[in-house]
């Protein structure tokens, strides 16, 4: 664009007044014409009339000209501002290029801040903001059993309960039930046999797809008629399994695959992104329950999910479902204290603690960015001080303050823009690292990317940043007093105000650092507390893996027992193996299948109804291998066979609860509600009591546990636990080979060391802790640099004073003390404000903490101490340097 010539700029000092200019011009014309006519001898009145007539319609032409001139003035103004802006930009760029050190530090600081903000925001965007791939996903809700007896608000249903909820409610347009499953997939491949695969699956009612509003991309969904045993030999597969296992074969529909050895026809492929109930689910089959299960009101094994009818709110649905639950409670005494709890699907998928953690991370990076901004603002202030003379000259020459502020702001926005561009590049690189380190159980992490929204937000943040850190220095630098300050050579009052501003910035930085460090400190303390939890077993040197025996090949318990006997025997013989055991699940999910039980010689009590008792078959060596303590009685032996007397081992927690003050060993109980009489489940004698183990991970309370000898409960899916002498995973191939040696077709999956399993349980916590810790560390670094910078600057400004005092005999130590004291007043104010801020903010974190109060005194004191030390160092170093100046040099300075 063409530059507006310089003289045009000066025109603006006179500000053209378009309307009166037009009037003047026309009046001049008319009067001149009038005068000419009068000179020819017309009377004044005649002359005026003739002039007007000769001119035409004065009002119309005047209006036309005014409109035209206004329009032209606006265009000219726009062009001038654009040209001003370009000029400012060039001026700013030249200025920044002249001070590469300043520019590099400022741009890097901003790039770090903006980059971190961009990265975290793109995660927030993908995980929290972007809608789920189901139409109106917020209208879908999980329907849980609210188990007040066990304090579990997300428990699962029995079929009769589900059916009652489904038939009696008027708030859901469809209510589906499902249960997760796992299958060995074989067959179905085009050429020969493919590798057997272990997949996660779900058995669901046919209306699940109506609830989620998703149809198969090819083929059809199953129908309600297929929810019957014998009619249910059909399956839907995921887009992932279809491409991975079957090469995206277009003729997949209609082909037969075997799931756990049972043949099923593939009737459809689900679209990409369909990830219900979990992202890993690859197969869906009709939920064909046996009749006795459909009658069993106390067998809880079903999840329920529904779509709200149009216009029905979640609250109203909750109220109506609770009313149904109330009715069921009165109708069936065993359902006492079992309510219903609705959770909207988006909240369900991204849990509350993850939500909180992500928002807190975003807040934390925002704070880091602000601290960085304060540093850049400080640098700009120092730069402005250097430029005071130049600015003063321009003000004296009549440049307007607004114009100068705009020019200085252009420079800071330019800095922010360059920082932002570099920041996006950093974020792009950092995101891969972030996602690589993130725990696997963060949903939708694969959808994280820097998209249009993220870029738009980043641009807005960069612009805002430029204005935030640029505005105050710009206003400060263009003070009208500067023009006068020129005369005296230095601006006394004005720089004092500048000093106040710097101290304010430094205090603000310190306060933000305190808040961040406190947050990070609380997470670290929680994590340490978590590590102190006694798990109840020895987790080192343990290798675990899952085995699942297909029903078609291992039909009888005898076959399964024989299989595990051979596997245990062969693995135990491996060099490097100390022992091997097996159990159905080492760790329990939050909602295990549960049952009730009856104690011999006692009337059934509600306590014994629907107690979450896992039914675990274990091999004799299991407890020894795990390092679980035997408290009394004995563990299982080879004599506890399938036909031997029924025996059971319970954990201490259960023994204490149900046989308080008695010896549990020797007592008998059986599963079921006792209604079966002599034909009911067999009585079992307690032969041992073992120590409590945290079966649901670190954070959940210890549960009740019952263990049966494997031959008396020969489940088909088992976890093999191997205690090794050396590194556990090193032994994995050998163990795998032994299993293959017994059954070559059996997939061995989830081969992990116990350390890996445990570490996955706290992965989200560790990740939050590491991330917040990193941000807090970055904040501390930037904050200390900021305080250091301010003190250095203030001290440098006072070189003459310091020199004078030294010359007058003040001991250097006293000078150091004076400077440090002044700096520490600022720091102390910052720390105090920061502690108040931390107390306000950490309340939001309580859901992320474990056994640590959000107002933990130790953490606050520790943080305050760290900052006191850091700011002391940041003040001491420049103070020391100042006190070492040669008084003569200092006095001659200036």
């Amino acid at each position, binding site marked *: 664009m063409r530059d507006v010539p310089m003289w045009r700029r000066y025109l603006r000092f006179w500000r053209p007044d378009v309307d009166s*200019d037009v009037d*003047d*011009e*026309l009046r*001049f*014309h008319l*009067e*001149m*014409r009038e005068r*000419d006519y009068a000179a020819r001898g017309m009377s004044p009145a005649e002359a005026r009339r003739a002039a007007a007539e*000769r*001119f*035409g*319609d*004065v009002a*119309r*032409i005047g209006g*036309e*000209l005014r409109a*035209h*001139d206004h329009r*032209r003035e606006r265009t000219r103004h726009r062009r001038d501002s654009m040209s001003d802006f370009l000029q400012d930009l060039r001026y700013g760029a030249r200025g920044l290029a002249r001070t590469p050190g300043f520019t590099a530090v400022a741009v890097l600081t901003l790039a770090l801040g903006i980059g971190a903000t961009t990265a975290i925001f793109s995660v927030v965007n993908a995980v929290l903001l972007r809608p789920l791939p189901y139409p109106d996903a917020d209208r879908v809700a999980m329907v849980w059993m609210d188990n007040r007896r066990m304090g579990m608000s997300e428990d699962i249903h029995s079929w009769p309960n589900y059916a009652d909820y489904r038939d009696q409610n008027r708030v859901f347009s469809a209510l589906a039930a499902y249960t997760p499953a796992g299958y060995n997939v074989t067959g179905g491949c085009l050429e020969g046999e493919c590798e057997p695969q272990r997949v996660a699956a779900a058995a669901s009612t046919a209306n699940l797809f109506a609830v989620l509003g998703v149809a198969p991309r090819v083929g059809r969904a199953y129908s309600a008629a297929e929810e019957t045993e014998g009619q249910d030999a059909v399956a839907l597969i995921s887009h992932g399994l279809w491409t991975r296992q079957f090469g995206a074969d277009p003729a997949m529909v209609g082909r037969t695959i075997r799931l756990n050895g049972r043949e099923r026809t593939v009737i459809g492929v689900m679209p990409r992104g369909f990830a219900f109930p979990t992202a890993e689910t690859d197969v869906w089959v009709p939920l064909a329950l046996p009749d006795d299960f459909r009658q069993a009101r106390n067998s809880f094994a079903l999840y329920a999910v529904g779509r709200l009818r149009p216009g029905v709110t979640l609250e109203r649905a909750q109220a109506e479902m609770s009313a149904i639950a109330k009715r069921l409670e009165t109708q069936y005494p065993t359902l006492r204290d079992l309510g219903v709890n609705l959770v909207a699907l988006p909240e369900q998928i991204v849990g509350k603690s993850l939500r909180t953690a992500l928002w807190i991370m975003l807040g934390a990076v925002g704070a880091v960015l602000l601290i960085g901004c304060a540093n850049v603002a400080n640098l700009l202030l120092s730069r402005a001080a250097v430029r005071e003379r130049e600015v003063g000259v321009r003000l004296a020459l009549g440049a307007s303050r607004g114009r100068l502020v705009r020019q200085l702001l252009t420079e800071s926005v330019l800095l922010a823009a360059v920082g932002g561009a570099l920041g996006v590049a950093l974020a792009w690189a950092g995101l891969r690292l972030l996602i690589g380190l993130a725990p696997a159980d963060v949903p939708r992490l694969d959808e994280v990317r820097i998209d249009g929204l993220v870029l738009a937000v980043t641009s807005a943040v960069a612009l805002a940043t430029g204005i935030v850190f640029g505005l105050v220095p710009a206003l400060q630098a263009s003070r009208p007093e500067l023009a006068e300050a020129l005369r005296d050579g230095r601006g006394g009052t004005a720089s004092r105000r500048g000093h106040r501003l710097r101290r304010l910035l430094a205090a603000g930085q310190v306060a933000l650092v305190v808040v961040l460090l406190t947050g990070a400190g609380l997470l670290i303390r929680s994590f340490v507390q978590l590590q102190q939890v006694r798990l109840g077993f020895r987790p080192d040197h343990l290798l675990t893996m899952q085995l699942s025996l297909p029903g078609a090949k291992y039909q009888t318990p005898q076959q399964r027992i024989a299989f595990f006997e051979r596997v245990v025997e062969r693995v135990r013989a491996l060099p490097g193996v100390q022992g091997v055991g097996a159990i159905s699940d080492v760790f329990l999910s939050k909602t295990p299948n549960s049952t009730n039980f009856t104690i011999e010689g006692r009337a059934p009590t509600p306590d014994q109804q629907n107690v979450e008792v896992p039914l675990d078959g274990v091999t004799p060596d299991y407890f020894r291998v795990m390092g679980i303590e035997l408290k009394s009685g004995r563990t299982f032996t080879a004599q506890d066979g399938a036909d031997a007397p029924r025996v059971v081992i319970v954990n201490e927690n259960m023994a204490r609860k149900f046989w308080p003050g008695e010896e549990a060993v020797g007592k008998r109980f059986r599963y079921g509600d006792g209604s079966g009489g002599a034909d009911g489940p067999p009585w079992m004698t307690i032969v041992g009591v073992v120590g409590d183990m945290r079966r649901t991970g670190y954070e959940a309370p210890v549960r009740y546990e019952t263990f049966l000898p494997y031959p008396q409960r020969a489940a088909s899916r088992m976890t093999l636990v191997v205690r090794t002498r050396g590194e556990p995973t090193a032994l994995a191939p050998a163990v795998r080979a032994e299993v293959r040696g017994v059954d070559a077709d059996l997939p061995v999956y989830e081969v992990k060391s116990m350390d890996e399993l445990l570490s996955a349980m706290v992965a989200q916590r560790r990740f939050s802790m590491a991330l917040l810790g990193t941000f807090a560390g970055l904040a501390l670094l930037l904050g200390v640099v900021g305080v250091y910078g301010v003190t250095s600057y203030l001290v440098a400004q006072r070189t003459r004073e310091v020199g004078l005092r030294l010359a007058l005999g003040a001991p250097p130590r006293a000078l150091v003390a004076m400077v440090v004291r002044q700096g520490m007043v600022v720091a102390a104010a910052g720390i105090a404000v920061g502690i108040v801020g931390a107390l306000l903010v950490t309340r939001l974190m309580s859901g992320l903490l474990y056994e640590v109060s959000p107002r933990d005194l130790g953490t606050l004191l520790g943080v305050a101490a760290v900052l006191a030390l850091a700011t002391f160092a940041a003040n001491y170093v420049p103070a020391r340097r100042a006190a070492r100046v040669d008084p003569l040099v200092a006095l001659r300075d200036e």
Partner: protein
Amino acid sequence: MSTDSKDLLQGTLAILVLKALLGGPAHGYGVARWIEATTGDVLRIEEGSLYPALRRVEDRGWVTSEWGLSENNRRARFYSITPAGRAHLRDEAASWMRYASAVTRVLRAEPRLA
């Protein structure tokens, strides 16, 4: 007035204005007076229409304007022709001449009988 003749008039006005300014900067009234004197007031243009015409030639960059003092010490807006204006006038004048001489030739020709 039809659109054609209006366009024609506007184009003509532009030429008249430019030509008037060739002699040096002048205010609007000066332009009007020059045209009046030069044409013997044959055209008798409505003087008000000069001003929109001046704005138009100014917008095209053929003329610039500036406030100054008139011969009788009044504040007046003076217009001066730019080099671009001179060039335009030259082109327009040439085509006017060609057009006018063609029309003149036609009018002077002997009517030829078929």
